[in-house]
């Protein structure tokens, strides 16, 4: 059915796929920024942004008003503003690196998406095949490797700004990322230890992890989040730190560093930093869901295949590959968005840690914990898979 697609030369196909990802990530990032403002408002008992409206939408009764009250047109207003306002370049900055920084920020943010599968479809054999741009075997390693490059953008931005607050912010950013990357990596190791059972072809890809969580049986159907709560917790906390979200946003920390690395930025360059931050969040949430949240499986002990099977009993259309693809992507996206809501919810609940607390948590709490966690599961898995 989609054979024509596979007849397109590979380069163009990959280009189209890449474009598609950008076309999805950008609006979601924009929507996230909007959602952030709305969630913030609701948590603070405010209505939030609710003014902007496109004229012809405003004419639709009820729906127009509803959309306006929801504030969704502020995404367009904000985006338009960011695109069209004067993009000033301060006189005292290192111009080349200053312009380079937001570009550098975007590259890892968009690149990591490549290796993250965001759904699955049933092949002719009825086997669930993950959908992703590049289902690499090194999966998690690629994510770690590329996403940690994001910190270079902050260092570049802070240094190129030639201003003390951005510089302080960028120093904090590098320290914070190094501190938490360790725990993060250690926390996911037990997952891969488990899924790479002796005798199997070894992989660091996400497909196997989700596949593992889709197995029938009690342990199989149980997501890693339940199987390894400590790992999940450490990964979750480290994720906050990696994406510079509250309570770990000492990097941005507007109350003591003005705006930190993006103090001197404005307009679209500033916007790019935020799109990058949200892409990080999206990718991070995706990785968390793949590793600990069952991927595109709807519920614990209810794998996607079972759901498709049940639906197929109602209508045979349900086993159509396209439907399964859309269903799985929707489930996965839903989980990711739920994660992002969690990010926002936490943001408006917890106060920011002090910088020394951030370092202390990272090195003195999370790192020993993750090492202990790794040792525990290494031994446990050794016993189980003996």
């Amino acid at each position: 059915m989609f054979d024509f697609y596979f007849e397109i030369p590979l380069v163009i196909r990959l280009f189209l796929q890449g474009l598609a990802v950008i076309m999805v990530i950008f609006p979601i990032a924009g929507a996230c920024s909007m959602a952030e403002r709305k969630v913030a408002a609701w948590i603070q008992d405010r209505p939030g942004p609710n003014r902007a409206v496109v004229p012809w939408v405003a004419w639709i009764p009820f729906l127009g008003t509803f959309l306006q009250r929801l504030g969704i047109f502020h995404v367009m207003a904000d985006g338009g503003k960011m695109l069209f306002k004067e993009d000033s370049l301060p006189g005292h900055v290192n111009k080349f690196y200053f312009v380079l920084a937001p570009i550098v920020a975007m590259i890892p943010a968009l690149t990591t998406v490549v290796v993250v599968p965001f759904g699955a479809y049933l092949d002719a054999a009825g086997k669930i095949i993950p959908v992703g741009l590049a289902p690499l075997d090194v999966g998690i390693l690629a994510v770690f490797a590329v996403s940690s490059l994001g910190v270079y953008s902050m260092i570049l931005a802070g240094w190129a700004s030639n201003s003390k607050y951005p510089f302080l912010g960028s120093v904090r950013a590098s320290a914070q990322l190094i501190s938490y990357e360790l725990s993060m990596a250690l926390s996911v190791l037990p997952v891969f230890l488990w899924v790479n059972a002796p005798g199997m072809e070894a992989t660091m890809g996400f497909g196997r992890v989700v596949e593992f969580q889709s197995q029938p049986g009690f342990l199989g159907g149980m997501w890693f989040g339940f199987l390894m709560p400590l790992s999940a917790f450490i990964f979750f906390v480290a994720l906050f730190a990696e994406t510079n979200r509250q309570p770990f946003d000492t990097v941005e920390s507007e109350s003591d560093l003005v705006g930190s690395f993006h103090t001197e930025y404005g307009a679209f360059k500033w916007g790019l930093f935020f799109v990058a931050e949200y892409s990080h969040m999206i990718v991070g949430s995706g990785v968390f869901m793949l590793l600990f949240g069952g991927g595109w499986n709807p519920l614990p002990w209810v794998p996607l295949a079972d759901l498709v099977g049940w639906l197929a009993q109602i209508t045979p259309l349900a086993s159509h590959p396209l439907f399964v693809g859309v269903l799985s992507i929707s489930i996965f996206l839903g989980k990711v968005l739920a994660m992002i809501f969690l990010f926002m919810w936490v943001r408006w609940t917890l106060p920011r840690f002090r910088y020394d607390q951030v370092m202390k948590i990272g090195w003195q709490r999370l790192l020993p914990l993750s090492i202990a966690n790794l040792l525990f599961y290494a031994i446990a898995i050794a016993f189980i898979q003996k």
Partner: protein
Amino acid sequence: MAVITVERKPLTFLERTYLPQIAGGLKTTLKHLVAPKKTLEYPEQRPAIPTGYRGVPTLVMDPNGREKCVSCQLCEFVCPPKAIRITPGEIPADQPDRAHVEKGPKAFDIDMLRCIYCGLCQEVCPEEAIFLQNQFSMSGYSREEMVNHKDRLYELGGTLPDAHFKWDKKKAAEEHGNAH
């Protein structure tokens, strides 16, 4: 001075992880997420102005519609940011309802870009002619527009009830009083 040492209860392990507190916090914010909104949508919904509110300073008329200000310039003197500027003038003798007051402002300007809404002008006014009233939003497109002139000040101020009738009494005394 007695020093009372308050024994602090040591934190339990769970408390030291802060996780229960974080969960409690999340619960609180979740409650607020669905709670009814507490804000006013300002231009459409106006707040109720409490009595004694110090809004834009205005000039008021007495119940007879006569201007109360006699341009004593005490408000100009007391105004900390020097927002008030008065040009005093004499009320000509041919105005039957005002001539007995003798003096009134020829020009009365309040620069709302300078005004800090402190209310000292109202406090110092011996004639109770200047009041900070309910009006709280002032805007304009130019600096000139932000200067309230006398006409505008009276338009904003209107007429307030007044129990003194000092000048009415004075006029009555002039007409029927202890004149020799």
